[in-house]
């Protein structure tokens, strides 16, 4: 069940040469365009919010296989484990980062986590990371930021294959090609990935990364009616089969279950764009996606277990871009979403839960002066199931001169309560028979249980149960960048104030002592810090990049309680004493310091790099019993992970690459179960067309 964090790094590199090498971020931002920040194509140098681009070349040279591999090497992002591999951005949980493929959202979150291992990087042209709330354009989930995966749309005919093999029998195969005529273009992509998985716990039957097979295919067909009108159709299918061997230990009693988990993703997009005239462009997108997950287990003592989850999401959206004049441009859009889910974890697996959302958004860009640009935007989401959300945003960029640019933005983000928080109806018989009920179910079920005498007590939180509200955040980002021939330095200060956070609370006890939990809007928290990236090109061969994030987090209620002297811990004698504000560490599982360092050597068609990733210690368990995380609690040790890769492109279309991940062989059985020890890989790719890598 536990998926893995870093294994991906073991895996492969695809098509090192198939695609003409993309421009790296170092080599001039002017040429790179970004879509995600404004929902329109823009030069990276003209973006007023913090944006980071990861190029295809960077992904390939890191030897990444899955999306989480490459994201784990970026400043300020860390991968979480549990319910798959999620990404935490600006200190917020994975629930609050929207993941898009070609601008369309991925669904199928488990407990709020979208498993990034589901996404192969084999056909990615670039990854765009926008930090800070972007709900003004994208609606729900874009609270911490947006990660948009732009897939490759080749400009010429290509055909390439790739293969990679590494430790734990991790293998990855890819096939990618494109055909282009005057009117029609097609690109197809297929990827197969498998691994034996591993366990870093000796003598454990259960693997921290289970044996898995994944198959992904994506097809994109474009048709150009004329210079003004284009149509494209895109379909992606991803399926994974995971062999589960799960041991639940309860009071020394272990129960083993074996079985298979299957996850399937299907996404389809139809897009028509039409330039009405030189000033006005209209785009209509119809998107449908489905995620299906099933887990079938049978335990040693023959007890079967079936868990099924199915989610569907359909959306139609229209956006009009109006280029008024050189100073003013605006984008107006609106759409309708129909979303459904059903699960064995709800009251009845055949009862389909539905939500409908209508929304409109407007964004305007005003180049007030040559050097000064304002972007303002707002979006209104009308929800069928819960309160409406209004998400404004304001950003400005000031170009001091050709080297220095300043950015400031403030925006509001939201996340709507998900189906789980509304409808979950789950009792864990394997672990103490506790139950979790979604907010819609909780009152109904508990009142009924109470009526038949199965409730022993109602907790104060029970009386606070009400309709869930969306979670909101207000994000402030203030940054600057400096760039010349050799240096590119960016720094950004951020603060996110998060209100109405949904958390589970104990609401009642059943007779017999089993606990019942439900969801409430109970928490207010903040995350703040600094993100810095420095890139330095020493000469044509050598370059260096370094990144650092300082992160401070906290829960407002906890801080007030500490300031009021109501929080205690224990001294070395075990006697209680008041806890000091300085001992408070904020939200758990967050490192105060994170850093990365990359040294890269390029010579003709050869490259080699070394990448070091550092995370300082993070709080894991409240061991002093005061309910909050402080320096007296249990921490995971800080660590360094070192990854290395080298590769050579040959002029006959062949390229090879080899790499070592986690070269220092750092492991932490308890806190990093998904980080294997040192792993190796070798990959080969061959281009049938366009053999010259340059």
């Amino acid at each position: 069940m536990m998926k893995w964090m870093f294994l991906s790094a073991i895996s492969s590199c695809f098509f090192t040469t198939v695609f003409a090498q993309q421009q790296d971020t170092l080599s001039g931002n002017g040429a790179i365009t970004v879509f995600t920040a404004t929902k329109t194509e823009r030069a990276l140098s003209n973006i007023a919010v913090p944006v980071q681009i990861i190029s295809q070349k960077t992904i390939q040279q890191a030897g990444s296989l899955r999306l989480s591999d490459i994201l784990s090497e970026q400043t300020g992002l860390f991968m979480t484990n549990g319910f798959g591999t999620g990404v935490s951005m600006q200190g917020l949980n994975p629930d609050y980062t929207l993941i898009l493929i070609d601008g369309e959202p991925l669904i199928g979150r488990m407990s709020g986590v979208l498993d990034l291992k589901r996404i192969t990087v084999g056909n990615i042209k670039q990854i765009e990371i926008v930090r800070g709330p972007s709900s003004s354009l994208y609606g729900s989930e874009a609270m911490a930021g947006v990660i948009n995966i732009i897939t490759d749309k080749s400009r010429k005919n290509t055909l390439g294959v790739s293969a990679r093999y590494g430790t734990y029998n991790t293998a990855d195969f890819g096939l990618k090609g494109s055909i282009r005529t005057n009117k029609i273009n097609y690109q197809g992509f297929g990827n197969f990935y498998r691994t034996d998985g591993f366990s870093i716990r000796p003598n454990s039957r259960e693997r921290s990364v289970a044996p898995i097979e994944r198959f992904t295919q994506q097809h994109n067909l474009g048709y150009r009616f004329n210079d003004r009108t284009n149509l494209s159709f895109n379909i992606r299918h991803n399926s994974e089969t995971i062999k589960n061997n799960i041991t639940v230990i309860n009071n020394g009693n272990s129960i083993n279950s074996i079985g298979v988990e299957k996850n399937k993703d299907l996404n389809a997009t139809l897009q028509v764009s039409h330039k009405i005239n030189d000033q006005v462009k209209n785009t209509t997108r119809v998107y449908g996606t489905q995620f299906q997950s099933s887990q079938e287990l049978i335990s040693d003592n023959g007890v079967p277990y079936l868990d099924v989850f199915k989610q569907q999401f359909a959306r139609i959206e229209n956006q009009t871009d109006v280029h008024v004049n050189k100073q003013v441009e605006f984008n107006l859009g609106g759409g309708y979403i129909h979303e459904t889910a059903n699960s064995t974890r709800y009251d009845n697996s055949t009862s389909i839960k539905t939500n409908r959302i209508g929304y409109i958004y407007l964004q305007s860009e005003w180049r007030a002066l040559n050097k000064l640009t304002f972007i303002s935007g707002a979006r209104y989401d009308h929800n069928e199931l819960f309160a409406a959300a209004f998400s404004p945003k304001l950003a400005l960029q000031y170009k001091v001169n050709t080297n220095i640019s300043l950015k400031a933005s403030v925006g509001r983000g939201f996340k709507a309560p998900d189906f789980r928080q509304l409808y979950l109806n789950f009792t864990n018989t394997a672990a103490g028979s506790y139950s979790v009920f979604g907010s819609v179910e909780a009152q109904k079920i508990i009142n009924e249980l109470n009526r038949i005498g199965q409730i022993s007590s109602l907790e104060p939180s029970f009386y606070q149960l009400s309709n869930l509200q969306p979670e909101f955040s207000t994000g402030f980002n203030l940054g600057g960048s400096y760039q010349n021939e050799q240096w590119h330095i960016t720094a950004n200060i951020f603060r996110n104030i998060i209100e109405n956070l949904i958390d589970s609370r104990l609401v009642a006890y059943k007779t017999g002592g089993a606990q019942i939990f439900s969801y409430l809007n109970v928490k207010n928290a903040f995350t703040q810090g600094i993100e810095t990236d420095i890139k330095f090109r020493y000469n044509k061969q050598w370059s260096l990049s370094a990144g650092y994030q300082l992160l401070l987090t906290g829960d407002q209620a906890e801080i007030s309680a500490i300031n009021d002297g109501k929080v205690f811990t224990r001294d070395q004698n075990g006697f209680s004493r008041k806890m000091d504000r300085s001992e408070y560490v904020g939200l758990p599982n967050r490192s105060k310091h994170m850093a990365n360092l990359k040294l890269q050597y390029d010579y003709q068609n050869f490259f080699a790099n070394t990448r070091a990733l550092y995370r300082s210690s993070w709080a894991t368990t409240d061991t002093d019993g005061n309910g909050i995380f402080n320096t007296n609690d249990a921490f995971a040790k800080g660590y360094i992970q070192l990854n290395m890769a080298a590769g050579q492109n040959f002029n006959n279309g062949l390229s090879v690459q080899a790499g070592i991940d986690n070269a220092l062989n750092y492991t932490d059985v308890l806190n990093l179960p998904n980080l294997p020890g040192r792993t190796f890989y070798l990959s080969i790719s061959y281009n049938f067309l366009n053999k010259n890598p340059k």
Partner: protein
Amino acid sequence: MSKMKQMIFVFGIVVSLVACSKDDNSGTSAVVETITVKDLPADTIIGITPGAPPTGGFPYGAGRYTFYSLETNKIVPASDSASNKWDLAFKGTTIATNSGNSGPGGAGAFVFVGLFNDLKTIPADSSFRTDNAPSAFAITTGSNRGWYVYDGINQLVTPIPGRVLVVRTASGKYAKVEILNYYKGGTTPATTASDAIKLNTQRYYTFRFSFQPNGTKTF
């Protein structure tokens, strides 16, 4: 050695090894001494019910309370359970008072939030609760409700810091109690400790208390 044997063995050697020590009541007016009681067994675990959850697999003890007198600082034999000789009785995480339907005494208690040393006088408006077992005890049972919190992931019981059990004894005098630890030796096992260690060392109370023999509410 099977787990069962191990447990019985451990249980055998620790039965009622109750050590009592006295320490200075430093800093306060020193009218009342503070006593620390170590490793008071409270229905220690002797086995696990057969089967798997939810029907089985639960650890169990002999089902007996350990009765304690704060006045005399001694364990009281179970044969005296129907007397005024004891003030508190311990069984697992449940702490009964010699009151209500738990015993014939005039005891009572409530959980005070604050520091042991800061509680110098029991506030006049305090209301002492009495036992109505098994549904309600004067000292509230349950995780994060009275004196302890249970970490279900690591299966560990931790006394909440800053909780003082304010006790009226069976004979109507007053005491204050701070539970320091729930495991043998006064040290909570590491979260990574084996289940056997967690099971074998739990249900041993370490606590400190002050008993005011003169009947006033001041310590």
